[in-house]
């Protein structure tokens, strides 16, 4: 047995605990090695990235929408498609945990099932960190996606402050994907329009509230401060209503006039998109006597376009 052994002296590391690290989303202090914020449960690597590169703030894309509109399916499929293709957007997922959302979604869809509903608890929300290399830019972009529970989102819109992570994420977001159920809207369900308007109103108020003061020096380029946040309004489940693909603006004006108006008035940089991931659904009776909606097959249409447009409008 050797008498010599190398024992690392980690005691200096204890000093790091003396310096709290603020959460990028909510600003509350955390330990330097915290994985997620103890206040809002947001990922702490957002702050680490922001500290490393103080010239570019992380590109944070929030996906908003009512319950069961298909946010998780959309995001999971988008990330999977982007990681599979090689083209104008070279895309790489960073970190194993960032793959979880894609894995859950794609595995379920391949079995002709939908992924489980995202829980209301912020600790269980899906975050994904990806690196995007665009042909027109030399420097890659670090993009963070967040998939939040629709029920929590609507609760936050009604009672701002209930979910600090939602407020923080929307305030720091550099791009937004708002999802609206085209199938329900096409069938005349007015709830869809109210959900959309409610979320857009909340979004507009949050952006105004979080807008940085004009002459504040943060080391960011002026364009980043001034440019309005791009918003992709995605009409999901458009496979159930082909009119969405055929004439989108007419569909929105006809079925979602309130959403159309609020976008024209309050969001200078927005665009509508039609999208579908699955082609048709049916109900399935499970052995336990429950009934679930299951997809008939997976045929993504219009999934990349909203993100591609956002990426083209990032203020970098």
């Amino acid at each position, binding site marked *: 047995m050797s008498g010599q052994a190398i024992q690392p002296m980690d005691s200096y590391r204890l000093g790091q605990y003396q310096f709290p690290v603020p959460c990028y989303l909510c600003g509350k202090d955390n330990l330097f090695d915290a994985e997620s914020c103890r206040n809002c449960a947001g990922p702490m690597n957002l702050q680490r990235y922001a500290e490393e590169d103080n010239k570019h703030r992380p590109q944070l894309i929030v996906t908003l929408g009512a319950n069961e509109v298909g946010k998780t399916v959309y995001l999971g499929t988008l990330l999977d498609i982007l990681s599979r293709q090689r083209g104008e957007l070279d895309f790489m997922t960073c970190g194993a945990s960032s793959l979880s959302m894609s894995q859950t979604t794609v595995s379920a869809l391949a*079995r002709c099932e939908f992924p489980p509903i995202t829980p209301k608890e912020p600790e269980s929300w899906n975050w994904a960190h990806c690196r995007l290399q665009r042909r027109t830019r030399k420097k890659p972009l670090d993009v963070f996606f967040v998939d939040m529970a629709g029920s929590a989102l609507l609760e936050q819109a009604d009672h701002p402050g209930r979910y600090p992570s939602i407020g923080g994420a929307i305030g720091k977001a550099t791009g937004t994907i708002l999802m609206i159920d085209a199938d329900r809207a096409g069938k005349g369900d007015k709830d869809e329009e109210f959900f959309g308007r409610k979320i857009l109103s909340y979004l507009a108020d949050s952006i105004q509230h979080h807008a940085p003061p004009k002459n504040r020096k943060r080391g960011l380029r002026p364009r980043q401060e001034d440019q309005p946040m791009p918003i992709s309004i995605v009409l999901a489940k458009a496979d159930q209503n082909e009119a969405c693909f055929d004439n989108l603006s007419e569909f929105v004006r006809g079925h979602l006039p309130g959403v159309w108006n609020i976008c024209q008035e309050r969001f200078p940089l927005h665009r509508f998109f039609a999208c579908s991931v699955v082609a048709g659904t*049916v*109900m*399935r009776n*499970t052995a336990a006597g429950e009934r679930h909606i299951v997809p008939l097959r997976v*045929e993504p249409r219009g999934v990349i376009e909203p993100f591609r447009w956002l990426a083209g409008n990032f203020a970098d």
Partner: protein
Amino acid sequence: MKTTWEQKLERLFGLAMVVMFIWGVSIGSVMVWGTAAATLVLMLSRLLVGFVPTKQTENLVTPPRPETRKIQVGRTRVVVPKSDSGDDASAKLIEQLIEAGRTALLCRPELAERLSPEQQQYIREILNEDMARVSGGRVRLDPPPTFGPFELGDCQWVEAESAYLDRFPVTNHQFKRFVDDGGYKDQSVWDADVFSATRTFVDQTGKPGPCFWKNSTYNQGGDDHPVVGVNWYEAQAYARWVGKRLPQDAEWVLAAGGSLGPAESISGQPKYPWGNVFDEDHANLWATDRSKTVPVTDHPDGCGSEEIYQLIGNVWEWMVDDYAGHDDLEQNFGFSRTLKSIRGGAFDTYFENHATCQFQSGENPFSRKHNIGIRCILSIDDIAPELALPIETEASEMAVCAV
């Protein structure tokens, strides 16, 4: 004071003026009335005596149409020129059917007996060129994946009979013949309960045709691409018009995966016509990255032993059967009708395990999707025995090819 001469002249002048006025009026009225009377006489003469054509109008006269009669071939009624000389009529009909690409109708025993030996040989060649003979056998039909995990006990073992299956999906060019021939107005090829709805089966310009066409024609360069944008009823009407029918699930699976031997009953059927391993060069799916349909002759490596192209990929294919187990399904389309089975996957099918020989999906029979097309089949019983390729011949031909 005027003299008597002057007075007389004045009276004469006045009288002359009156006479001239009366004469003028009468002449004018005679001219008007004369013209009217002449027109009337001419019209009456045309009606009563008959119109005498001039040289110029001779060409406008429609030649007398030959008398026709309809004969029933399968479910389709074919219009035949009525003639005492049977040879002329048959020859004309055969030419018409061949020209319209409806040679399958000539394979029917009702018409095949009228063919000369040379014509029979010609039809046999066309039949074997366009269609592949799939020998009957036993196949396993898995429950649809939407039912969740299953065990072998949940599968169905079905006997499928021998048939001729199209080697290629139906192309735009082939479907246009149906449209041009007035297929959308031919009641005999449509189901009675949907015939009234055919006026809604229109293209983007409101004319009869698949929903992505314009002015009853397809986009330039789409000749050999599979026809899409047709619903199940249009697919069935086309199949009837051309003298065929839509395949059953078991027939399609048999053609794609082959028959189960007695020792292969558990896992004998391959996942794809070419084997069990997916190859993106063998089929047009999402992974192939084409993002649209390709000509029906592409991907020859994806054919199985029967040389049937694109059973997997490019476009889904309508089956005649309902989507399995529809009793347990409540459709999410707002219709009370059952879903119809589709198989094979399409250019935008994301997962390769959704485009296997066994995978079944469903679609509303009224849907006119951008990725669902048609492939037809012909039962062996519908082919005159003298035209069908005997199994022995087929086997020996295959052996010669192998050598």
